[in-house]
């Protein structure tokens, strides 16, 4: 194993232009709001952990790129918001919470669906709208769910009060679980967030509010949307941490710190993950009309989460180039098989159209497009 320690050199995202280019054993210090201490200055990374994080991030990356390909072939249709570039957030968070903890996010959700335990097959089949999809093909890209993972929400910001409610349930049931509630820089200006912050702080709910700040709300840069771009401070009376979201270790340590904070009964905490998405907002956005290709390229070369982890492990002799290659080949194969399944699985049957509107037993009748057509709704 290897011990990595904190340095206080600033990074690309905090406004400075220099990033430590040498893959050294440093993770960056977090900015703190209303906190005396932050995440620890040293973090441990074992070989197994490193390989696991690498595998997780690379799987999400390849899965998203496969989705891009399928979308361009019109096998996936509708809305599709890809997560590539932000993998360290999902991987780092999952590494520091328990499977029994809860997580809810917005529509850029494929990465979290995977880290929360859904197979690549089921994710891709949901994107193609087949019955083998995780939501039986009825939800699509923005609506994927799993035990302890509440989606997958299309309306911006609407998931945040829900997250606070889940945290309330954890507190009420005394099960020592917490809820990770994610939202983006665009959603940070929605009124319902501030309602949630207030309730969570008032009742000391075990909720980690995480803002994935990828610098653009669709095509609007953060400076043009928000009066304050210090999203970790927006909880005002709630303590906050600003974290380098491209470094999976940084994310892990910060989330661990936040989880301990919540579990010890201190109430909610806000985390801002500074991250970046390579794709546009969705597949209908080329992503280059509001930012330069040079900017995207710079992030890819200097701050890519997967490359950074790989270089760190290589330079510390924790794994070999061949091992990484093997993992890559294996992941490619898995993603290819999943795509095969997603293109060949049949669509859900028409009988499913009206199922699961209500909870009802026995089946009820759903009025159709004209008075004499009724379908059955089974729940």
């Amino acid at each position, binding site marked *: 194993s290897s011990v990595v320690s904190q340095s206080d050199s600033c990074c690309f995202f905090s406004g400075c232009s220099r990033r430590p280019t040498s893959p050294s054993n440093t993770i960056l210090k977090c900015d703190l709001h209303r906190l005396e201490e932050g995440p620890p200055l040293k973090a441990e990374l074992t070989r197994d952990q490193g390989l696991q994080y690498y595998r997780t991030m690379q799987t999400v990356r390849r899965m998203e790129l496969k989705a891009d390909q399928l979308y361009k072939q019109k096998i996936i*249709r509708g*809305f599709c918001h890809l997560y590539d570039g932000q993998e360290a957030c999902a991987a780092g968070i999952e590494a520091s919470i328990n499977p029994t903890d809860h997580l809810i996010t917005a529509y850029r959700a494929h990465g979290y669906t995977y880290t929360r335990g859904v197979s690549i097959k089921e994710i891709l089949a949901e994107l193609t709208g087949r019955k083998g999809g995780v939501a039986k093909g009825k939800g699509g890209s*923005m609506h994927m769910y799993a035990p302890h993972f509440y989606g997958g929400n299309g309306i911006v910001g609407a998931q945040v009060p829900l997250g606070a409610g889940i945290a309330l349930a954890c507190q009420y049931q005394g099960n020592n679980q917490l809820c990770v509630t994610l939202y983006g820089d665009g959603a940070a200006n929605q009124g319902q967030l501030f309602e949630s912050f207030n309730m969570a702080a008032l009742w000391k709910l075990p909720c980690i509010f995480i803002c994935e700040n990828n610098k653009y709300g669709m095509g609007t840069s953060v400076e043009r949307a928000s009066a304050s771009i210090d999203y970790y401070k927006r909880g005002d009376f709630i303590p906050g941490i600003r974290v380098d979201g491209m470094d999976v270790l940084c994310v892990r340590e910060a989330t661990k710190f936040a989880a301990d904070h919540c579990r010890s009964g201190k109430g909610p905490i806000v985390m801002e993950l500074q991250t970046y998405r390579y794709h546009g907002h969705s597949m209908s956005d080329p992503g280059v009309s509001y930012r330069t290709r040079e900017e995207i390229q710079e992030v890819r070369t200097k701050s890519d989460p997967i490359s950074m982890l790989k270089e760190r492990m290589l330079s510390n002799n924790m794994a070999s180039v061949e091992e990484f290659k093997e993992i890559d080949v294996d992941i490619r194969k898995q993603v290819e098989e999943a795509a095969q399944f997603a293109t060949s699985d049949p669509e859900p049957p028409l009988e499913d159209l009206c199922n699961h509107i209500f909870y009802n037993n026995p089946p009820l009748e*759903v009025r159709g497009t004209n008075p004499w057509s009724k379908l059955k709704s089974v729940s």
Partner: protein
Amino acid sequence: CGTHKMNLFQSITSALDNTLASDPTAVIFGEDVAFGGVFRCTVGLRDKYGKDRVFNTPLCEQGIVGFGIGAAVAGATAIAEIQFADYIYPAFDQIVNEAAKYRYRSGNLFDCGSLTIRAPWGCVGHGSLYHSQSPEAFFAHCPGIKVVIPRSPVQAKGLLLSCIADKNPCIFFEPKILYRAAVEQVPEEPYIIPLSQAEILQEGSDVTLVAWGTQIHVMKEVAAMAQEKLGVSCEVIDLQTILPWDTETICKSVVKTGRLLISHEAPITGGFAAEISSTVQEECFLNLEAPISRVCGYDTPFPHIFEPFYIPDKWKCFEAIKKMINY
């Protein structure tokens, strides 16, 4: 007056351009309107009229409408854009409780009549649950606002200009599937199409077909099918204004034909067809030859993969006409 070939989004731009030119208090705001909007309805306006008149808001629908109400009360002609009608619900309270009731509760001392809210509306082929909704029925239930839905570029420009000029807060839903698909010769100068007046597109004697927005085009096809295959003559009426709706034109037509079919994409239960049906049976009971028919969306959330089956297409409407004729 010169006309110009325009599609639906261009006709909207033209209406907004006319407004900004003639009314110095007019301002346009919403998410992403500055660069032209996600459907290109505001292209060129910021450059032409300045960034203090065409500006972006952050992502906050409740804030956008509330802000719009305030601006209107203070005297500005406020034109707010909600990016998709599916996202209008955070603003529902502002619309229903604040905007609609302003004049009433202040005894006519204040009003926000110069507020117009625009939103893309209706199914688009791949919109799924949150990019396809038709929420006009929710707002039809609210006295104090007007709800208007155009079917084509010429109608859109005239109706939008009417909404902006109207001294009541108006919601203008734009069928997004028609933004590029519908093209007409539209006058460049401003013109008004009166609100609360339904338009008879085609006269007929056997069945009255009522719809609005995209569905009107389906009805025109159905009327042609009915004539050709059944020898049935249909009267096709575009309602245009949902609230307050033109009861007179519809009832007069039903008195003549004796049969009524209403169709919309929104779910059937509580959809606006229910209101029309109820009123018509009150007014024209003895004239009816068959029960009033409603061909609408299913009572489910707007589906992802099932959309082609869900929408009230021409075959379902044709079937309904056959049943009414043979009643």
